[in-house]
């Protein structure tokens, strides 16, 4: 029996000596372990990037009572910064406790950050940044200048924005003379207003710094650009009002102060180049039965690029949706000068898109496209309804919306801790504002009107326009577009309120041959 007990203990000792020591057992006598990281950081061109910092971590976890469950650990960390060639080397040591029984290791790098040419980086590719098997790792990173943190390098954004910047054709009879500069407009004449649930104006203040609001399940959240503010659950509606004279508002910005805004982002293997243009007024009162107008009119066009940065589709935004065209069907010129002659079909040397803007409504069209027509039929003789048709000047090339410079819109991000949206990096500070931009016509008697738009980040199209959205996304044609809106009937307007039989009233969207009216 004693012999058996001895044999049992010998087996246990052999087992412990063989298996119970950690698999990372490197130096069982000194019990001090060394982990290293050889870090390399380069840019898209393959050149090393200096002064990129990060932290290297070496963690050893222990099972001191042999039950197979981690019950203790040691963690060592050290920061690093890449040298002029973009390299950094770090080593760390851990001496394991005398009572260790089993253990695991984990070495990894975190918190990579830094700047290129004074611009914050984003990591677009990384390899071998952590290991549970090896003490020595060789992390490598590809980083880009990316202030707005959208994983598209800022120089590439500028390059793409310049390459495709469009020529905007204006209808000669459009009341809007020039593009508007929203920043100037807000600073010089903007007022932030808030209405409570009863419709009473309860907030009326200067804008800067622009206040950020958000509606969530708790109500309206009210914060300024720095995250300061308070929750105001009783607020119903926020709007920036412009103190402008209606008769002069159509002038837009003066020469030298007319921006063309752009937004460039990547989704899956495609890049998207959006150009946004802002008009002071959308005023079709002269073309409709009602006082159909609103201040603030964001419009845009989007060029979809493949991975080699060649256009594969162009989406023209019109009213509630858009139409997609192949680049071969669109009109391009070799420069964005208004004197340049548009030619149908894209080539790499003819990359500036021509866009025809409809009169007063400012829908964007490809040349010779059918145009939007909305008819409202009130089923009582003589009462009339509505019959509005876009008008473009496809032929004369006599008038343009010129711009003096381009402005990057950037990106926004939602933060729980921040209670709302905020601009990423150097993105436009007003981009996260979620209220309406400008006053608008509203007939309270029938609960209908023309809302002013929201900022581009909240417009249909900033992202959703392009992703799996059958109404607003790429791939739409006249038929698909019309299916969603045709017919509209009811008492209170589009997709809202109780529906009445179509014999009471109905609305019809169709696409008709353009008549410039010139």
């Amino acid at each position: 029996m004693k012999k058996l007990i001895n044999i049992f203990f010998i087996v246990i000792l052999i087992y412990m000596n063989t298996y119970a020591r950690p698999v990372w057992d490197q130096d069982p006598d000194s019990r001090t372990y060394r982990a290293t990281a050889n870090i390399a950081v380069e840019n898209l061109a393959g050149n090393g990037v200096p002064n990129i910092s990060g932290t290297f971590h070496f963690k050893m976890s222990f099972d001191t009572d042999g039950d197979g469950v981690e019950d203790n650990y040691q963690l060592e960390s050290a920061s690093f910064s890449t040298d002029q060639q973009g390299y950094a080397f770090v080593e760390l040591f851990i001496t394991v406790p005398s009572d260790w029984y089993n253990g695991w290791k984990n070495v990894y790098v975190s918190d990579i950050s830094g700047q290129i040419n004074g611009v914050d980086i984003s990591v677009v590719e990384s390899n071998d940044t952590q290991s549970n098997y090896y003490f020595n790792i060789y992390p490598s990173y590809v980083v880009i200048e990316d202030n707005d943190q959208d994983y598209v390098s800022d120089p590439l954004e500028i390059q793409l924005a310049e390459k495709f910047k469009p020529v905007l054709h204006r209808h000669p009879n459009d009341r809007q003379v020039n593009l508007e500069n929203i920043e100037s407009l807000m600073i010089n004449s903007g007022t932030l207003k808030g209405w409570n649930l009863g419709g009473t104006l309860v907030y009326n203040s200067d804008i800067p710094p622009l206040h950020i609001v958000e509606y969530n399940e708790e109500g309206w959240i009210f914060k300024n650009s720095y995250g300061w503010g308070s929750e105001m659950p009783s607020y119903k509606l926020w709007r920036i009002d412009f103190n402008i004279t209606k008769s002069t508002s159509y002038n837009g910005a003066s020469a030298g102060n007319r921006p063309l805004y752009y937004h460039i982002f990547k989704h899956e293997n495609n890049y998207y180049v959006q150009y946004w243009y802002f008009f002071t007024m959308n005023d079709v009162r002269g073309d409709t039965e009602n006082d159909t107008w609103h201040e603030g009119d964001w419009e845009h066009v989007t060029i979809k690029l493949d991975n080699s940065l060649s256009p594969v589709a162009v989406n023209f935004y019109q009213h509630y949706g858009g139409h997609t065209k192949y680049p071969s069907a669109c009109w391009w010129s070799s420069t964005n000068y208004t004197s340049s002659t548009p030619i149908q079909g894209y080539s790499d040397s003819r990359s500036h898109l021509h866009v025809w803007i409809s009169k007063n409504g400012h829908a964007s069209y490809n040349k010779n496209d059918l145009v939007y027509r909305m008819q409202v039929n009130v089923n009582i003789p003589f009462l009339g309804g509505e019959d509005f048709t876009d008008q473009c000047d496809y032929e004369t090339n006599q008038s343009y919306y010129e711009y003096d410079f381009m402005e990057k819109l950037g990106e926004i991000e939602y933060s729980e801790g921040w209670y709302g949206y905020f601009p990423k990096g150097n993105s436009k500070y007003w981009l996260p504002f979620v209220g309406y931009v400008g006053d608008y016509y509203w007939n309270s008697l029938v609960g209908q009107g023309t809302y002013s738009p929201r900022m581009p980040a909240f417009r249909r199209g900033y992202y959703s326009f392009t992703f799996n959205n059958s109404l607003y996304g790429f791939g739409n044609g006249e038929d698909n577009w019309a299916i969603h809106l045709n017919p509209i009937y009811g008492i209170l307007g589009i997709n809202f309120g109780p529906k009445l039989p179509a014999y009471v009233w109905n609305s019809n969207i169709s696409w008709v041959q353009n008549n410039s009216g010139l």
Partner: protein
Amino acid sequence: MKLWKRFIKVFLIIFIFFIPLLSSDSIKTKNRVSSVYFELFGQGPILSINYDKHFVDKNISFRTGLGIFPIYNFYFTFPFGINYLFGKKHMFETNTGITVFLKMNENKKIITNDSKVVPTIGLGYRYQSEKDWFFRTGFTCYIGSDKFSIWPGISAGASF
């Protein structure tokens, strides 16, 4: 609230104007049954409150009312009509008349140059007797210069 005040004011004016006419001794009446009823659709043509009075002959009645048409634009409506009735309690009704549409803008002011008068004809079923419920249903045809539209309608009220 102002809108409702105006609504009531216009309604009272109509009443004051027509009631003496209907009760005039110069009109020979056999059975002057009066009714007040609400109408959904019909000549209203969305929702209206109406007064109906037999005169001259028990088979002939006059109808006037005040309604709203809040479709796309907001209109106050004033249906006027003459009905010819066949039967006693259960009657077949034919009628002709006009509906006046006064367009209101968002500032609650009447836009006179956008206000319209639309002729109508109609037919339907009516249940009516003195001091009893009033019920009617039928179709109203609005007649335009180049089109007409037919609206079903249903009315309920009381006779006295």
